[in-house]
């Protein structure tokens, strides 16, 4: 069992707080992703698990063992770095065998293990080369191989794909995921790319300014973000935010903003009742806005198209609703041109409401 437990972990540099009140349990064999904008503390947290940064306060356990004071070499973790960190003076084979040699593993076994790993990653033919003679993608594989060959308790990935080109990144994403499934080891993966996080993580931690914002499965973060930051960070194109207020009489509630009035579905009324006649922030995902036939249907909005951006499977429309600028992601078959008017239909059950002051989701 190699779960990783963080209890109230804090990291400060002088007076600057890099990570604060970080508590979570990463289950054995789980693929956990830390995601957030740069400077949010995700890499710092990872490095604390690795032992490359001291822990200012709190406790970290790997398995049952408290590792606050355990030096990195005794933690039995392997890390893949963003810049690969391959030893330039060693061949690929020696790079991969480095950790095994340190463990005093017999030569024969080192050789079979390195060769097997190289085969899995498709780098067998490069074993005798030095890193300099490899392409970025191949170096990336060697870096992965060096981590995998050791079979540690926990794998740590620090933005391993961000130096690859877009196409290769998607391919490696898939391979990493497959590898994780076959290796069955606890993994922590740091990225700033929300799509990487969504596609790879069993669970995701969204971080901002050193604080955890939300922990959950990818779709949970997408459909039930706890605050405005998570809502805007997860999903592409980004969620539309509109300043609005809650209106209505009796049981019926409506959300009203310049140019749009939408009825609030029954299951959300309870939480929104206290906000009647008050300002809120309305969130609508571009995917929840589709083209509609007429204004007769429920939840329709009249919008002026500003820019049309076809991306193939969808068309992104920059639209103006009243004084609000929104993005709608409509079906690729929709016939629409710039400067036209279009009727959009909002998916009412997927509307998000946020407190204007605290920015927390209202549920």
């Amino acid at each position, binding site marked *: 069992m190699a779960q990783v437990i963080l209890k109230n972990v804090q990291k400060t540099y002088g007076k600057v707080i890099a990570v604060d009140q970080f508590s979570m349990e990463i289950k054995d064999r789980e693929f956990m992703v830390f995601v957030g904008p740069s400077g949010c503390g995700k890499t710092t947290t990872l490095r604390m698990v690795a032992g*490359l940064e001291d822990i200012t306060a709190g406790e970290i356990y790997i398995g049952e063992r408290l590792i606050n004071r355990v030096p990195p070499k005794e933690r039995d973790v392997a890390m893949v770095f963003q810049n690969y960190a391959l030893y330039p003076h060693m061949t690929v084979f020696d790079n991969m065998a480095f950790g095994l040699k340190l463990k005093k593993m017999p030569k024969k076994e080192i050789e079979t293990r390195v060769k097997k790993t190289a085969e899995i990653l498709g780098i067998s033919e490069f074993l005798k080369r030095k890193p300099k003679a490899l392409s970025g993608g191949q170096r990336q594989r060697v870096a992965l191989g060096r981590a995998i060959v050791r079979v540690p308790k926990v794998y740590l990935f620090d933005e391993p794909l961000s130096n690859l080109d877009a196409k290769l990144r998607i391919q490696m994403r898939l391979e990493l995921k497959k590898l994780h499934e076959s290796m069955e080891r606890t993994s922590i993966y740091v990225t700033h790319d929300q799509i990487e996080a969504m596609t790879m993580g069993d669970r995701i931690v969204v971080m901002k300014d050193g604080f955890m914002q939300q922990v959950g499965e990818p779709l949970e973060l997408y459909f039930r973000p706890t605050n405005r930051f998570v809502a805007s960070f997860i999903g592409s194109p980004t969620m539309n935010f509109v300043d609005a207020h809650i209106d209505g009489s009796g049981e019926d509630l409506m959300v009203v903003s310049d140019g749009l009035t939408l009825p609030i579905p029954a299951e959300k009324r309870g939480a929104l009742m206290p906000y009647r006649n008050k300002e809120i922030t309305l969130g609508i995902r571009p995917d929840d806005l589709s083209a509609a036939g007429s204004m007769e249907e429920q939840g329709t909005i009249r919008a002026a198209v500003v820019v049309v951006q076809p991306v193939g499977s969808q068309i992104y429309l920059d639209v103006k609703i009243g004084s609000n600028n929104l993005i709608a992601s409509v079906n690729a078959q929709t016939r629409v041109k710039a400067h036209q008017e279009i009727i959009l239909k909002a998916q009412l059950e997927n509307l998000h409401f946020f407190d204007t002051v605290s920015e927390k989701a209202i549920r």
Partner: protein
Amino acid sequence: MTERFTEKLLRFHIPLALFLLFLLFPFYWMLVTTFKSDVELYNLSLNPFYIYTWSLTNVKHLLLDTPFLQWLYNTLFVSIISAFISLATSLLAAYGIQRIRFRGSGFVGVGIFFCYLVPPTILFIPLATMVFKLKIWDSLMSLALIYPTFLIPFCTWLLMGYFKSIPKELEECAMLDGAGRFWIFFKVIVPLSLPGILSAGIFAFTLSWNEYLYALTFISSSAKKTISIGLVTELVRGDVYHWGPLMAGALLGSVPVALIYSFFVEYYVAGMTGALKE
């Protein structure tokens, strides 16, 4: 085509040629003087840049009538030992200051630099007292131990700059792979810093080879002199300059250094420009 050639000639080849002329002329002068006979050397009516009759008298005089070979050996001995001591010490010092974060590491770094700034003309008096008390006065060991006082600060600074250019992740990765500090130092840092170490070594070697003041102060017996002081003290008698043997000595004395430089010039440049290029 011709225009580009002229431009290249004017902007590159001619300045380079002038530069070379300026730099190499002293060597040419040494060479010419070495292989001239005294008669030819002091005859002002002859062309001074040309040798009319080659003669080995000066070289013979230098090698047979003066302890030049002993001086050469002394210089080599002192330079190698002091370069070795300085390299071994400053490798560890530079690594420690650069990579092991301890309280005051920045201060230590600057402090070492200040040591280098103190001129030997101030230091040689207190150092002389120490040398005397250590009972190594007038011995090669005095120089081999004193030279590191200015070589270590120099090499440490040079190596600190080099270590800085090695990505930290390499060490961190090795650490996670289970390597200790010394293992990382010898298996990762040292192999990667070879150009830097070599240039620090060459520097240390040539600085000790050319050192004058300390050698003049701490050595008095003729058999223990280094080339730089031996030539000046034994071949300049009062106001008489024995130009022939003097130049022969200068020529033979500078050959080893020139050889070392030309052998390692590539490493040397890499060491100066730092950086691991991936």
